[in-house]
């Protein structure tokens, strides 16, 4: 026996509150979803598949192929951002802000961009008196050290709008060799560390800041100083494989199987300079251009052949 049958909607107040709650929830949910495309999340938090997210990071690698642009960004972790059928005006070191769907490709998280912004960044090292960005001196109010600035590009009046704080790495060492790699160059330090940069660099002292990758460090800012010329007796004291620069007079020259063997001498000693056939074109050297009595400056790697030290040249001038 029931009392009050067919009075389901008697509880109008609480039902009304419930409906109002649903409406408020829907509005809040829609607003939050719309907002979600604006706020950036750390790359490390992206463990989802096919969820929307916004991320921001420094472009650490760009690979263009078949009309696609594959970009990798870094904010402490790496994220692949493939732009399919699109040529994007972007360079390593720019900041890419991207919103899109997260997916997985070959076990790696990637974000398929629906909206993106490329922000140029100025990198520089400040001292007490000036900030060396490689472009201009500015912003003396910045603290000494490395800075990554999203700044006005007008020379002389660059004002810091926003400073980026990503985990950058400081690097310094002596470049032993350098070679082209994809669209940039790779320099190998004496320590074995590989640095990726543009443009090409010769052997020399390098100090810089960059972001770490599996293969080495992508340089965002660097200062390169050429090797100091030293005496032959001093140069041979370096360990084998170390880059050296010496200046001396050619005392002999001979050709064997197309290779040119030169011995140079200074006041402290002499050393052999083998110029192999396949290197002659690269160095712009011919047998006729090296005449005994001529003074030359040789930059190269200290090496050894049958117990005798020699310099494998990378530059002869």
């Amino acid at each position, binding site marked *: 026996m029931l009392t009050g049958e067919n009075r389901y909607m*008697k*509880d109008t107040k609480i039902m009304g509150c*419930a409906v109002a709650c649903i409406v408020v*929830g*829907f509005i809040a949910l829609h607003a939050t979803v719309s907002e979600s495309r604006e706020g950036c999340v750390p790359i490390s938090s992206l463990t989802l*598949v*096919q969820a929307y997210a916004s991320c921001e990071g420094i472009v650490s690698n760009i690979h263009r192929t078949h009309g696609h642009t594959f970009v990798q960004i870094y904010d402490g972790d790496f994220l692949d951002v493939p732009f399919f059928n699109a040529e994007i005006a972007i360079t390593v070191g720019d900041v890419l802000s991207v919103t899109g769907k997260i997916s997985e490709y070959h076990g790696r998280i990637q974000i398929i961009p629906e909206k993106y912004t490329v922000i140029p960044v100025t990198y520089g090292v400040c001292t007490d008196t000036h900030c060396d960005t490689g472009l201009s001196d500015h912003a003396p109010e910045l603290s000494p050290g490395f800075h990554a600035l999203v700044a006005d590009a007008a020379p002389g009046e660059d004002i810091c709008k926003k400073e980026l704080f990503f985990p950058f790495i400081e690097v310094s060492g002596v470049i032993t060799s350098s070679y082209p790699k994809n669209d940039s160059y790779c320099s190998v330090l004496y320590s074995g560390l590989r640095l990726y940069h543009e443009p090409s660099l010769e052997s020399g002292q390098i100090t810089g800041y960059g972001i770490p990758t599996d293969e080495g460090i992508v340089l965002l800012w660097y200062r390169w100083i050429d090797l100091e010329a030293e005496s032959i007796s001093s140069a041979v004291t370096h360990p084998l494989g170390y880059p050296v620069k010496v200046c001396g007079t050619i005392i002999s020259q001979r050709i064997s199987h197309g290779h040119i063997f030169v011995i140079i001498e200074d006041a402290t000693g002499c050393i052999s300079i083998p110029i192999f056939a396949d290197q002659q074109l690269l160095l712009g050297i011919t047998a006729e251009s090296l005449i005994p009595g001529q003074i030359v400056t040789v930059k190269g790697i200290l090496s050894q052949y049958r117990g005798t030290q020699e310099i494998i040249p990378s530059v002869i001038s």
Partner: protein
Amino acid sequence: MNESLLLIGYCVAGCLCGILTGLIPGIHVNTLLPFLLLFPDSGIHGAVLIFSLALCHTYVDFIPSTLLGVPDADTVLSILPGHRLLLAGRGYEAVKLTVIGSFGAFICSCIAFFPLSLMLSNLYWIISPLIPFIILFFIGYSIVSERTGRKIGYAIFVSFLAGIYGHITLSGSFLPDDIILFPIFGGLYGLSTLMLSVKTCGTIPSQRLDGTLQVNRASLLCSVIKGGIAGICVAVFPGIGPSHGATVVSSRSSPRHFLLSVSGVNTANVIFGLAVLYMLGKSRSGAILAIQDLIHCDPHMIKLLLSSSCIVSGIAVISTLVLAQVVIRMITRIKYRYITLISSSIIIFTVGILTGITGLLILGIGCIIGLLPVLLGIRRIHCMSVLLFPILIYYFNIVV
């Protein structure tokens, strides 16, 4: 808009699952989690689905406990007051009180969410060491409030017995952690209540579905806030379950106020579970743990889940009230003796299926202990020592 609609779809799906787990005795939110994680195509969707399920469950699971006397760990204390109201022809009011309690606690939790979240870590470190003393005070207070010396003696005996029972069953590895409470509470409060009901009541009296509440607004608000505060404490402090929270806040309340407070504890617990995950990085329930595995808990995700919870709460309120009316119509057509038999069978059958002979043994012992307070003329809240004793042992690091 598509993403919003998709999320609403997941809210509705979560609600449906919550209704399912709420209505079927013995099926806990954690039981469905492994299956749920197979369906969503992203972490956010999965989190919304699970959160919706957990929240909706806290509303609907009072229907079987209030109307059929079949409890789970979260609703165990609502059985007696709910049953009392059912037998007074106010079954629908009992369910409605739990709905208002849950909904009120939800609103309180949403309002307090961000301000309290900021204080959460400090609060946690300040209050955490005091928890065992609060529990100890509560046990002492509930025993002393029996007033006469003889009853105090009985209360000590029942508390001690329930505590030993709880320690043995919970510290031994008889059954998995997520299911052990079902036979314990099924025996202590479910089966024992039903056995007494068979003896005392022949038919279910006519039920009023007019939806009126015999509670004044001020006391209603006070009970709802008490439930909300208890739920927040349950979410923040480890080792405290919804039953403990409800026990502490409602030890001497009237049945109606009791239902209001108890129901709010679970809902506030679910909402503040999110705050604890966000601020302390800790998860206090299976659902929050699953959400933690799916998403990075940042302010945006919190806003998303809280927005979803508004939708879920609205749906849960409507569906619980409608379902309660349907169930009341069904049970009033059946003799109460049959209902108690059916309910008892559901408990025994479900415990048997889920936990086997061991579970049935635990159920039987729990039932005997659950009958003692009634036979000795004391309150059954002393049976809650089944959980309070193990917590004290945990906090005081007592080796037994």
